[in-house]
């Protein structure tokens, strides 16, 4: 098959409940307008959202899974970043 490949787009939808846009999947489309239309047809058949973003997949820079430890492990040891690290006397009640 000598077909030219139709570019891939990642689709993000903002649901009605006030949350931010969330990745829902991908579509192939020749340009942004068609990608938006395809995303609307494929990912919002049941009132899933109020706003759609499409981003060319090739434009996404992702962290390398091989760097996972270097990037994310150090945060595991920093328990003082969490409120439960600190002692508050019972008398103080809610804080």
């Amino acid at each position, binding site marked *: *098959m000598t*077909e*030219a*490949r*139709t570019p*891939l787009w990642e689709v993000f939808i903002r649901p009605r409940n006030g949350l931010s846009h969330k990745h829902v*999947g*991908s*579509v*192939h*489309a*020749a*340009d942004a307008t*068609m990608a938006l239309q395809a995303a609307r*047809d*494929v*990912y919002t*058949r*049941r009132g899933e959202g109020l*706003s759609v*973003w499409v981003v060319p997949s090739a434009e996404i820079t*992702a962290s*390398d*899974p091989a760097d996972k430890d270097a990037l994310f492990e150090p945060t595991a040891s920093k328990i003082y970043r969490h409120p439960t690290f600190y002692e508050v006397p019972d008398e103080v009640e809610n804080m």
Partner: protein
Amino acid sequence: MYSQGLIGADGTTDEDEAFLQHFQSRIDAEQKIEPNDAMPEGYRRTLIRQISQHAHSEIVGMLPEGNWISRAPTLRRKAALLAKVQDEGGHGLYLYAAAETLGISREEMTEQLLTGAAKYSSIFNYPTPTWADIGAIGWLVDGAAIMNQIPLCRCSFGPYARAMIRICKEESFHQRQGYEIMLTLCSGTPEQKQLAQDSLDRWWWPSLMMFGPHDSDSTHSDQSMAWKIKRFSNDELRQKFIDATVPQAEFLGIKMPDPDLEWSEKRGSYDHGPIDWDEFWRVVKGGGKCSKDRISDRQAAWDNGAWVREAALAYADKVRARQATAAPTPVAAE
């Protein structure tokens, strides 16, 4: 809808023992495997085969039902059938996208379908001569598919599991839609009820075959179970489907075409008669009544859409060239 995805899936792999053990320990710990993670070649190959065949099944599955859109008996039925067929198209696209994360292109998958290198579920090679078949497909074929698909929501490969969650949510209306058609026919005239019975007679055995060969003949199941691509065996799922469906037929007042079907107190399940595996393999190998039509319809859709794909890409190039002369102003996303 579901393909007998494991038929022909080759799970052999030749990585070293330490690599395979580390991978297996991740699977055993119920960690999801994501596209950029290291994985055995056999795992990748098995998933590409299973997901792409599942996707092809959704797409080809639009054809037998599409046959009745223009002849649905009422506007309500027509709107529901259109929505169902559109869902199947959407499900195919979610699944193609999940397979693409493993490094196969959409174009390659399409080519594999059209040349016959990849299979799709044999159930779609049966014809839909009457309106009752649309009821039987929703009730039995989608019912069997749901049995298969619910465990796939917990599949070890993240993108496949996520696509299946979406699909299962949408699929539940399909089965109800089919059962409602059967119910309407069964509470109609004797001729209408006979249409429903006739359709059940034709779809019951092929629906049972959708779960694939018996566990004793299912060659690649063990590896897929170990990798948690598959969570239940073919026979376990088939039994669950039979146990759930027989009472639904009794409610309709129609009979499964199996004289050996009988409740077993001992097993707490229905016993059933022998499945005609010769027919199953004949249809898998392309000998189904509609096998040639299905592929020639897909080929025609691909060929007739070629000029649209070319024109869309040419237009996108033109617009890009035009925009390259104007400076872009970045704005923060809303």
